């Protein structure tokens, strides 16, 4: 076996140009395959990380995003009396009434506006989001026209540095802090004091109410209580589930796009490998004859050629993987169709994608090498030796 691998490797080296051309083709296929999967994974991971498993978000029944949800003050007050809610260190209920509005802001390099989330936050909002840290400046004071800007938004948009002023809702808002929420959706948000924001937008209602459960397992009973209450007409979701659902449409689109591209591209690459391997078999028929005459069996010849094709495709696959791993440094932002707002995320190479890519290139190698290898194995010794 070792002997065969060395023989294969030498062969690949001798026909360098052909090997490189075919391997590069494979590498590009794997690169495209990985990059689309990485976009989808990055988006999913970002939204999943945004939610926290202990938190529950309450919205108006039937609304799919916070922007279109409406919760009246009286209903929010009812929610706050739920006994299952955790207490904050200062003794208050660990619950936040929030308002989400979208505003148009301009990216540094674009002349078209993007939709950015402005979240009106209550006293406990920051406590509820453990991943969010203030890296520069401070939180807005209650009742003031001050905002804190997510790090990713601050980097990519015009006029959102510490100390800048932003005008919307008929007043100027001063950026008093920059918050970093890692790779979660909150890095793409701007936070302001809820009462000021409600005033500015003349909206007397909240969008959502978020609270933390004292005990995670209480969720089902709390959910049932909220959804059964005829006064409320609201629905409750675990925060993780809520954010995961927001990535679904986009992730599905990317998955379909990625899979169909992978199929088409791999068809091309398999054909490329087949062309190369057929040529190898034709050129080396004398070698094959010699090997057979030396006593190697048909099965071994078959395996040998498949192995060569697999080595070729795996090599290409690894190069493709290496190339795509650099994409992890790339941060892209797009409109999430479900929330109609801007979300920034990093491409992510998960272990699953690596395995899938390797399996995929293995499969391409086997499929591309199978038919030529069969031809090689079928050659009769006499014919093979006579062929020129």
């Amino acid at each position: 076996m070792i002997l065969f691998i060395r023989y294969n490797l030498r062969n690949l080296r001798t026909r360098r140009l052909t090997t490189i051309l075919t391997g590069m083709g494979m590498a590009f296929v794997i690169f495209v395959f990985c990059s689309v999967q990485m976009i989808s994974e990055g988006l999913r991971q970002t939204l999943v990380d945004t939610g926290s498993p202990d938190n529950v978000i309450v919205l108006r029944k039937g609304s799919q995003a916070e922007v279109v949800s409406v919760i009246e003050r009286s209903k929010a007050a009812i929610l706050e009396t739920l006994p299952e809610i955790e207490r904050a260190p200062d003794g208050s209920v660990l619950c936040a009434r929030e308002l989400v509005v979208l505003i148009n802001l301009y990216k540094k390099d674009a002349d078209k506006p993007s939709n950015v989330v402005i979240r009106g936050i209550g006293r406990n909002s920051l406590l509820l989001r453990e991943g969010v840290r203030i890296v520069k400046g401070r939180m807005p004071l209650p009742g003031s026209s001050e905002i804190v800007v997510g790090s990713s938004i601050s980097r990519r948009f015009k006029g959102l540095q510490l100390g800048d002023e932003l005008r919307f809702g008929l007043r100027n808002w001063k950026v008093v802090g920059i918050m970093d929420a890692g790779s979660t959706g909150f890095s793409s948000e701007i936070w302001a004091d809820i009462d000021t924001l409600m005033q500015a937008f003349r909206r007397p209602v909240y969008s959502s109410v978020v609270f933390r459960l004292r005990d995670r397992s209480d969720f089902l009973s709390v959910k049932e209580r909220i959804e059964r209450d005829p006064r409320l007409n609201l629905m409750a979701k675990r925060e993780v589930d809520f954010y995961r659902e927001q990535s679904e449409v986009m992730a599905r689109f990317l998955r379909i796009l990625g899979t169909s591209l992978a199929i088409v591209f791999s068809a091309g690459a398999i054909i490329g490998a087949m062309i190369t391997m057929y040529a190898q078999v034709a050129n080396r028929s004398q070698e094959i004859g010699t090997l057979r005459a030396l006593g190697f069996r048909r099965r071994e010849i078959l395996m040998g050629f498949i192995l060569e094709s697999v080595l070729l495709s795996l090599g290409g696959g690894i190069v493709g993987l290496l190339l795509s791993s650099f994409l992890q440094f790339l941060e892209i932002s797009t409109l999430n169709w479900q929330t109609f707002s801007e979300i920034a995320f990093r491409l992510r190479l998960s272990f699953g994608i690596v395995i899938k890519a390797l399996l995929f290139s293995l499969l391409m190698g086997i499929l591309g090498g199978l038919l030529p290898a069969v031809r090689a194995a079928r050659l009769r010794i006499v014919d093979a030796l006579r062929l020129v």
Partner: protein
Amino acid sequence: MLLLKLLLRNAFRQRLRTVLTVLAITIAILAFGFLRTIIDAWYSGVEASSPARLVTRNAISLTTPLPLSYKDRIKRVRGVRTVSYGQWFGGIYISEKNFFPNFAVEPASYLELYPEYVIPEEQKKAFIKDRKACVVGRKVAEEFGWKIGDTIVLKGTIFPGEWEFVIRAIYRGLTPTTDETQVFFHWDYINEGLKRTFPLRADHVGFFLIGIDDPKRAAEIALEIDGLFKNSLAETLTETEKAFQMGFVAMTEAILITIKIVSIVLIIIILLIVSNTMAMNVRERLSEYATLKALGFHWIHLSLLIYGESIIITMTGAIFGIILTFPSAKIFVDAMGTLLPVFHITKETILLDILIALSVGISSGIAPSLKAINVPVQSALTRVG
């Protein structure tokens, strides 16, 4: 003629290899055409927009409404001919999977602004007269098997509740690029419902649609309209319909760029495959080329032979690919249903297909032909395959 015959003979000497290469190009051209058409579909809204229409929306963002009372003030601006208004309804038909755009609009003026939605006169009258009526695109109607007179129920996501509509009209697009997947109904009907459930939200619209006399004055009129509402509670942003639609495209630009990069990678892959085939072909025939050289043929003849061969291979693949694009696009469109509003293969796409095949053919001939030209006759003749 003799040359062409020789080229064809050469190209199909290694029949299996050539067939495989042609197949690879066919697949690639097919995929490239598809990707191009998907990108075109992205821009379909932009393409379909008219320079004589302006869109006014809330300056804060599209999700913030404007008071209906603005309509009369906009109408007074010089150069404004028609003002219509509407609201993205975002209703769900049975399940979220059945997506189609649906809007609540002011029916008479809206249809006046959109002559590209072709509706038979009596259907149009029936739609305008009945407050519960809706008009649906031909494609959605086919997708869900709707007929005129059917009642459909949409579940509101922005406007809570279940809303019933009666189909009174079906529209067709004036051109193949007109979106035939939309559903429109009366804004009044939704507003009446809101007055009962959410009186605060009633009498507000998502956007005003403005028809103007002279497209050249669009910028001027837009500024004048925005000036009317400066420093009010709901400031407006007016832009041409094209710019408005471009805004949507720009928001999902990242995905668009991905698709564009992928289609470039696709070209590189076929370039690699064809280069490989040509490299192998020429390497095997090196002694023949040496013979030709020994007989006194010039480098021009050799290059003609090699470039001609690779171009024949790529063009054959391209022709098959282009021919196959049409039936497979039809299958694709039927499978996607209303998810894809417009899927129309343009002349430019086909032209681009041919251009790519040609340039791949030429560039994959470069290295092999140089090799054939430069190889010393003696060493090529003594060389063993």
